[in-house]
């Protein structure tokens, strides 16, 4: 039931490997569904084309949200959890049967919800704020999926227990698995919150419960909706550390710092969901400021710590390999031909500069007034969950194909280009959406000419340019995703078999040599980059507050 990997030397449990493969395949299918919908949506919002009718536009917004934010990400994360808790720890899968039960529950949830949406019985958006009501099977599908995911997370802990009992990893978990463990803990909190809100809503849709209070619904729903993004962040950052190890033999320059930052995520992110209610009635300013600052900022602090720790792990390793000239030789001589490496670097840049900066500024109580529910919000999370998480997952797949699927990557030249193309596409899309939102354009809105309304409104003429840019970005990103999917599908099903280390197209670096003792900064280049980040952040911060100060007075 084990094979010894001839490339990494890891002991691979075959039943675990099969589960990883199936979950990964379903992740890719979900991503395909999501991006096809995304292309149609972008072409609809771009007014000169205005492709879909109102009905199908809203239907596909719902469909896109569910497949991209829930199915693609969670299927991939489950594959990652299984990988991190068995292969990496040289241990066996605790209960493959339960693993299949989890998989079947999740897959049937996916099919059920998607079919109901496409039948037009659940045009309620991913958020499905009550009293908008969907068909009961829509909620049931999501509940089935969540139960399956919860079982999978439990199996992850089961695997850790076996590994501990069999003393597979010594005293401390590897950092990658440690990070995944924090993701798994957040996942338990998140999925439990999801049950807390989806079960009453399901009963309400059946007519068994009379009313689901809309404000309570929104409060608890975001305990699922936002915390689940923190699962993504924890999983993504874990992969960043892993790619640093695989690509340049790097490691966190201080593991205690990195591990503590992961713990901050667990402790504080759930409260931060409050920033979805900043312009809502029912909760006071004191509640909003407290929950979005101390709680969220300690989670933000965690991301800021990783923002230094991850690049510095690359820098430190590269310097130890001898790329020591100046501030940035470590970066210019980095393995840019390795698509997993370039994906991760681009993901870090996009996540920090686009998603992170806007996330913190939009999440402040007062500045939220000028962006709430505008298209700047999806623009922000395209920066976090698409450039950040999705591009990271795409990048690590270039390692999973040879190591888990045991196939060579077909079209490796394209694989080198794909991360850049995807980054450029989503960056254009995301930045245009943020600008459009700052100009007041609403999100989830079929017709910004307001046809059929009693009045009309013309946005700032600058919107025309950014609509075009957004469409261009969307088309580029769609193309890059299709290239990635084709590479994955062709490699996995038709690629030549990997028979040993000589077939690896992506190098696996040995550990960087130990550091010579030195005085001064460990990672001066990274420090400069984080200062640049700080300047960009401050610019966005003051711009937003300036725009806010120009609006009407309100209290």
């Amino acid at each position, binding site marked *: 039931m084990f094979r010894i990997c001839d490339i990494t030397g890891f002991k691979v449990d075959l039943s675990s490997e099969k589960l990883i493969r199936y979950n990964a395949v379903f992740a890719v299918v979900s991503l395909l569904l999501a991006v096809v919908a995304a292309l149609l949506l972008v072409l609809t919002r771009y007014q000169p084309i205005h492709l879909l009718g*109102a*009905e199908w536009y*809203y239907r596909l917004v719902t469909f896109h949200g569910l497949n991209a934010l829930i199915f693609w990400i969670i299927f991939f994360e489950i594959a990652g959890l299984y990988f991190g808790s068995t292969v990496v720890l040289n241990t066996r899968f605790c209960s493959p049967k339960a693993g299949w039960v989890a998989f079947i529950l999740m897959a049937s949830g996916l099919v059920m919800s998607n079919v109901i949406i496409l039948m037009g019985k659940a045009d309620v958006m991913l958020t499905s704020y009550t009293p*908008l009501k969907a068909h009961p099977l829509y909620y049931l599908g999501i509940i089935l999926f969540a139960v399956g995911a919860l079982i999978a997370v439990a199996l992850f802990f089961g695997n850790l227990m076996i590994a501990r009992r069999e003393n597979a990893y010594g005293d401390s*978990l*590897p*950092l990658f698995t440690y990070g995944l463990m924090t993701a798994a803990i957040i996942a338990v909190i998140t999925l439990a919150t999801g049950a807390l809100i989806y079960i009453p809503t399901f009963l309400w849709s059946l007519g068994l419960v009379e009313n689901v209070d*809309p*404000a309570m619904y929104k409060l608890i729903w975001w305990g699922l909706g936002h915390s689940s993004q923190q699962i993504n962040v924890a999983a993504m950052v*874990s992969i960043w550390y892993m790619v640093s190890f695989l690509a340049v033999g790097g490691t*966190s*320059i*201080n*593991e*205690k710092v990195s591990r503590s930052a992961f713990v901050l995520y667990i402790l504080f992110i759930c409260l931060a969901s409050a920033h979805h209610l900043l*312009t*809502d*009635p029912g*909760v006071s*300013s004191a509640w909003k*400021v407290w929950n979005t600052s*101390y709680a969220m*900022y*300690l989670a*933000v*602090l965690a991301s*800021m*710590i990783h923002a*230094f720790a991850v690049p510095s792990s690359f820098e430190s390793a590269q310097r130890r390999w001898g790329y020591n000239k100046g501030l940035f030789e470590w970066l210019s001589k980095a393995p840019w031909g390795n698509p997993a490496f370039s994906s991760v670097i681009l993901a870090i840049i996009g996540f920090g500069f686009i998603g992170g900066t806007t996330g913190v500024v939009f999440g*402040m*109580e*007062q500045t939220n*007034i000028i962006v*709430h*529910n*505008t298209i700047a919000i999806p623009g922000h999370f395209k920066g976090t969950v698409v450039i950040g998480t999705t591009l990271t997952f795409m990048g690590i797949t270039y390692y999973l194909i040879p190591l888990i699927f045991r196939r060579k990557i077909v079209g490796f030249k394209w694989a080198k280009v794909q991360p850049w193309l995807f980054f450029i596409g989503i960056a254009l899309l995301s930045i245009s959406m943020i600008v459009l939102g700052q*100009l*007041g354009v*609403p*999100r*989830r*809105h079929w017709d910004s000419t*307001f*046809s*059929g309304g*009693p*009045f009309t*409104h013309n946005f*700032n003429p600058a919107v025309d340019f950014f609509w075009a840019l957004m469409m261009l970005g969307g088309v580029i990103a769609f193309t890059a995703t299709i290239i990635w999917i084709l590479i994955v599908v062709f490699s996995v099903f038709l690629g030549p078999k990997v028979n040993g280390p000589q077939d690896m197209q992506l190098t696996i670096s040995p550990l960087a040599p130990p550091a010579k003792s030195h005085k001064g*900064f*460990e*990672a001066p280049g990274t*420090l400069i980059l984080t200062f640049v980040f700080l300047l960009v952040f401050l610019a966005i911060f003051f711009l937003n507050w300036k*725009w*806010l100060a120009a*609006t*009407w*007075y*309100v*209290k």
Partner: protein
Amino acid sequence: MSLLKPEEGWYYKKVSKDEKMWMLIALVLCIMMFIWMVLWHVYGKQNPSSLTYRTSTTEFGKLSSAYIKQNMVGSDNGVPVVRPQPNTDVFLLAEMWRWSPVMILQKDQAYKMHISSRDVVHGLSIQPVNMNFQVYPGYDYVLEFKPTEAGEYKIVCNEFCGIGHHTMIGKIVVIEKDEDLKLYGYENFKKAPDPVATFKKEAMSETEMALQGEQVYTLKGCAACHKIDGTSQLAPSWKGLFGKDEKVLVDGKEIMVSVDESYIIESIKDPTKKVTVGFEKTPMPVFPLTDEEIDFLVAYIKTLKN
């Protein structure tokens, strides 16, 4: 060594100077942002209010229509227009798919707006000044606005509220002096007319009834879906409707009906019994109208000829 166990003594390894520096900067930044938000409540002029009242959709609907009846100075495209006194309470109702009323406000004067929804969750988005708030059914959110610039503003709905979401757009006009009303075609809207007199039905002519019907059309929100300009995006236009033959669905079967008084009355009282073909996706809700108000509406519809 993220795939291997950490090196010996990792727990006691000293944190490097640059990493320490960065963590300190990040922490200070977080604390500054917290203080900034608190200080903005003291010195800043834009802070979301903490004042909310529990209400119900029926109660707020009544408050809103009573308010509009008392303060209406005219109507704009089927939406009632009010001109509230500064420092008074204003009731703004969100419903599928309109904002009512249209408001004429004075620059640099404060207005306490009570905002709530009659049906689902909506998003209040004042453009182009770009201020956005969430609107719930059952919660009366009180926001005190003080417009700082004169001009015409629109209220866009930016929370998905059903298929007609994109048609949900309202209006606020901010003026400095009375003459500005002319800019918006509101020159006749200077003061509230006498409260709607209670007529006796038998004493009214068809024309009077039609005029009353027009008010009902505006006040009750029929205008959100039924247009009088001949366009039929969400519901059949009332222009030229009376006397027309319409194809309707009854229990899944298509039949032809002629639009007469009894058909209109039946459609208002039981809107889903016969649904006009082509509008199955936007079923009409039941509106609480008196028989007298329905008669007024019928009289009004009769006057809307092609």
